[in-house]
């Protein structure tokens, strides 16, 4: 398989598979989708140039992602009692750029994200930009950037991964 190139259709399908892992709380599998230098970024402002000198909602490298994923397994994650559940409702992903020779894609996907905990439910609208690369014959995430529609609003806790 490793020599077989991955096509655009596979990159689009990946977007659905990725969201499903989060929604099913298969977070170790989701974590493994990121490259070693992968990042999960949710900017705090529209058009924010970077996550180093400007605060973000998420700007997680793999270490910080690991902290989140492991924390959610802890019985002492008090804010997760009762646990939160989430659902991504994806619009058709569109290939923004595709470099089949280098096996690299950018896929843009508008979506609605619902996070529920007990009697409360939070609904967010966002656009994700998945920067994908193929490593050893499978797609991996170099960057997942999530642009929240109301990124500058006063928000309650967002505990899972939009």
């Amino acid at each position: 398989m490793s020599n077989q190139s991955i096509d655009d259709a596979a990159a689009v399908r990946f977007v659905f598979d990725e969201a499903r892992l989060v929604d099913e709380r298969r977070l170790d599998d989701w974590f493994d989708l990121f490259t070693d230098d992968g990042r999960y970024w949710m900017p705090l402002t529209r058009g924010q140039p970077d996550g180093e000198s400007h605060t973000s909602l998420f700007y997680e490298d793999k270490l910080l992602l690991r902290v989140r994923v492991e924390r959610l397994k802890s019985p002492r994650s008090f804010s997760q009692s009762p646990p939160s559940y989430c659902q991504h409702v994806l619009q058709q992903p569109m290939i923004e750029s595709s470099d089949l020779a280098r096996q690299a894609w950018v896929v843009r996907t508008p979506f609605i994200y619902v996070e529920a905990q007990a009697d409360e439910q939070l609904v967010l609208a966002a656009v994700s930009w998945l920067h994908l690369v193929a490593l050893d014959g499978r797609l991996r995430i170099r960057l997942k950037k999530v642009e929240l529609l109301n990124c500058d609003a006063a928000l309650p806790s967002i505990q899972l991964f939009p």
Partner: protein
Amino acid sequence: MTSYRNDNAAVLNLVRPQAVHRDVYVSPEIFELEMELLWRNTWIYVGHDSQVPTAGDYYTTEVARQPVIMIRGTDGLVRVLMNRCAHKGAKLVSARSGTCEAGLLRCPYHGWTYRPDGSIRTIPVRSGYDGTGFDGTTAAKGVVVVHNVVNYRGFVFARLSAEGPSFDEYFGASLSSIDNLVDRSPSGRLEIAGGVLRYMHDCNWKMFIENLNDTMHPMVAHESAAGTAKKLWAGMPEAVPKPMAIEQFLPFVNGYEFFDKMGVRLYENGHSYTGVKFSIHSNYSAVGEYEKGMEQAYGAERAREILGEIRHNTVYYPSLTIKGAIQSIRVARPIAHDKTLIESFTFRLVGAPEKLLQRTVLYTRLINAPTSVVGHDDRHCYRAIQDGLTTDGNEWVSLHRNYVPAETDGMAGDYNGTSEVSMRGQYRAWARFMSGGVADGAKS
């Protein structure tokens, strides 16, 4: 159900030296009285003057739930205006910040315009007011100006009430924490930078404020966040430098002894800071050329003195909390008895390496964001208190830890870090203002 309005004694009965009645958190009526008596009569943080660098720049927020505009005038002064058109009362500005067109505030409804000092510049077809009795009214003076405003080294505070303690009387020596934050800039200048995190809490504002100098909670509430980070890093060889995020997480799960020895210093009127001797920020790695730049700016001895002061949280009761050692602030905006907006800002130390801005940006994201694993557990606990306090059988909240009767003679001083004395100090001030009293140290 007790009615507190017009019953001063009932309000005072809510506060004992070492306990408070649940109604201070759960009663909507007490909340209304707090807005009228505590939040109007004390000095509330409005904003930082770097948010309005040039004439005509404005920043909008709320003081005691009333919308206000912080605006810089053509004379360079930063004023605080009520965000209300003198005519029919429309909020003049709805954007959170900006620059007013042609240097004037203009009402979107009938086009009345105002100078940044609040005075009326134009009313369309002004002749319509001739002989109507309009001249001489409050409206004719323009937008209501908050007269009691102090810009302390860039930090703008307002007291809405005409009478009350002066700024210096109210804050006194607690201002040393703002001093230390400003002094940490080699140029002596700070700039708000890096964005504002706005985190909505479904709890009473006091739960947040009290928590800032509650040092018995981090190792419990934050075990899942900081403890997990500690475990993940545990296998790493000593030689591998700790990433900044790990440096910032780890001290949250330090033991009781660490937090106790850190110490807490109390001032009158509810102000306090933890980290008298050291704090969770003490062991951060040095940042590049920063110390050298500080020595050049202040001289070696003074620079050491400034950087040796590594305070944890300072509470400027009731609205502002600051972390001088990493140049960040959190501002409490009460909305209802069970709803509070917490806004977190970070500063650039003008003239210092950009890495310091990046450090505070990382910290505030890890700790203060709506997406923060530390913040999640704090907020969960606050809401759990809000719900738990509605139960019958025990209407009192214990603040006994390390209480000594001698405290009541005057609370200013140093105490062990895990004492609940900072909360007792806050309620002492609370009771005084809620009963219409004056600040300690104020002339009667």
